[in-house]
């Protein structure tokens, strides 16, 4: 999905303005000319200039490309749904892994994603369980990453 450069430029320009203004609130170091705000200010100026160039270029192409030229996936409800589910599953992991524990969360997320991507339904739970346990063994037992146990805490090893 290609968004016209003018729109991206406008978003970046807004960002650079926000950064530039916010940087003015950083406290100066007494007796020192170059404090915490210098770098962010420079970046915001450079980003602002770049976005101006992008806006100018994008306006010239506007007649040809329009605001957004959609890729084939953007017109396919199936693909968009898959993307939304993938992102939602990562968010689900972020929110649920601590209370629920790694093993149930990873199993649920994997099983749903396998389903979305068309893995055979009979294989899905087997694969999800197998991969969850392999990753758990690798990171928790071998690399000693404290993956959360959550509801399984009484059975933790």
């Amino acid at each position, binding site marked *: 999905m290609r968004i016209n450069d003018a729109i991206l430029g406008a978003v970046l320009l807004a960002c650079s303005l926000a950064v530039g203004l916010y940087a003015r609130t950083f406290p100066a170091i007494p007796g020192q000319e170059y404090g915490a705000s210098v770098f962010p200010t420079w970046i915001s100026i450079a980003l602002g200039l770049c976005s101006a160039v992008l806006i100018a270029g994008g306006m010239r192409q506007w007649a040809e490309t329009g605001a957004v030229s959609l890729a084939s996936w953007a017109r396919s409800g199936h693909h968009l749904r*898959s993307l939304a589910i993938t992102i939602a599953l*990562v968010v689900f992991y972020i929110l649920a892994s601590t209370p629920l524990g790694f093993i149930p969360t990873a199993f649920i997320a994997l099983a749903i994603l396998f389903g979305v991507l068309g893995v055979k339904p009979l294989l899905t739970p087997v694969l999800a369980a197998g991969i969850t346990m392999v990753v758990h063994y690798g990171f928790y037992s071998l690399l000693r990453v404290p993956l959360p146990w959550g509801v399984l805490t009484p059975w933790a090893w």
Partner: protein
Amino acid sequence: MDAILLATQMVFQPDVLVTIVLAALFGLFVGSVPGLTATMATALLVPITFFMAPVAAIGAIVTCSAMAIFAGDIPGTLLRIPGTPASAAYTDEAYAMTRKGQGELALGANLLFSALGGLFGTAVLIVAAPSLAEVALQFSSFEYFWLACLGLTCATVVGTGSTIKGLVSLMIGLLVATIGLNNPAGVPRFTFGSVDLMGGIDFIAAMIGLFAVSEIFRYVLGMSPDTSNVQAPAGNLFTGWGRLFKQYWRQSLRGNVLGTAIGALPGAGADIAAWVSYAVSKRFSKTPEKFGTGHVEGIIESTSSNNAALGGAWVPALVFGIPGDSITAIVIGVLYLKGMNPGPTIFINNPQDIYAVFLIFILANIFMVPAGWAAIKSARLLMRVPRNVLMPTILLFCVVGSFAINNSVFGISVMLIFGLLGFIMEENGFPIAPTILGIVLGPLLEENFVTSMIKSDGSFLGFFERPLAAGLGIITIAVWIVPLGLYLWRKARS
């Protein structure tokens, strides 16, 4: 001499050797599956190297990246789908050879000249790095400031595509680098009261997002190529190696030299080296009309070049701490984590660490021949790995890897945000490598700038007072002005 002996002892430990072999297999696998890149392989490896001894960690990364760059040639040759971007330059050529029934010859040449290129890059690294380090010892904050500027400039100018988009990408990276408490003034910037943001954006989680998660999004959207109808090469890969070498040693050497040089340029890596070498090979060939019809000459030159670039990229990384490409950007992050801070002093204080890196480079490129042979033989199997199982597994890996950095889910949020950012950027033609270089070099740039300004009492002239600094400064400014001048001149003429 003691240092070399010590380095040999450090490398020839069972655990280090096992790690190298495993990393090689991992690199071959990731490199040969289209859609998974060498940079992605490295990014996925970092959370695991976190828990290793320094030498094993570096060994894993070196081996994995070398193997992945070679293995990218396999699907390129057999399916016309480059396994990693570094193979894209000669994919059409290699596939044309397969159609002519010369797939074995193409793959054999890829394997031989990849390994030779890697060894050449290593040799340059061994010779150039210590002598450059002696020069670098005289560097002060002024020189480091210019070097960082030069690196960032090259990253935006040399890359393919729009320079202005490269610049935007760089600015995004620099902006991300300013987040947190870690600045010369120690002021919390852009933290919005969040304790997690105080520590800054973790660069590994950002990498995993930009290079791995964005690729998973692309797969989910059905943008990955179909690889089901692959034919495995049946013949002997090693036939004709002697003849190839005798006939094309000049091309191989030219590819090696150019690749190493491009690799050493900050910001330009194996991908660009391969494109440039392919063009050079065609330009100087006695039979340029054969290019594109399945001619091995250009393949040899560019496959030599992309593997040589890997070694070259380590020169500025080890000596100055300035990454030569996105893989060495990750490496620098790992070196700091492992207490092997890159810079000239490491050559004096811990020469055994440097020799160990050299040794691993040599081992990896020699091991490439048998391992690469096995990978080519099992190509059919590798390319048929069901990706609807593989991609969710990689996503789980990314999630756990991002968690493992600080044992906090904040890393996963960073990963997700950068995954989306990387996806949107790629879709709209913004290169990703400058963002990574910006995140890595941002703090260096700012620290050296502020230190220099304090030293010179706020006078910009300080940046040109020392001869070394003045030289570097003039080169940097020339790199800014020359392309702009050329552009205006061409515009004025037309």
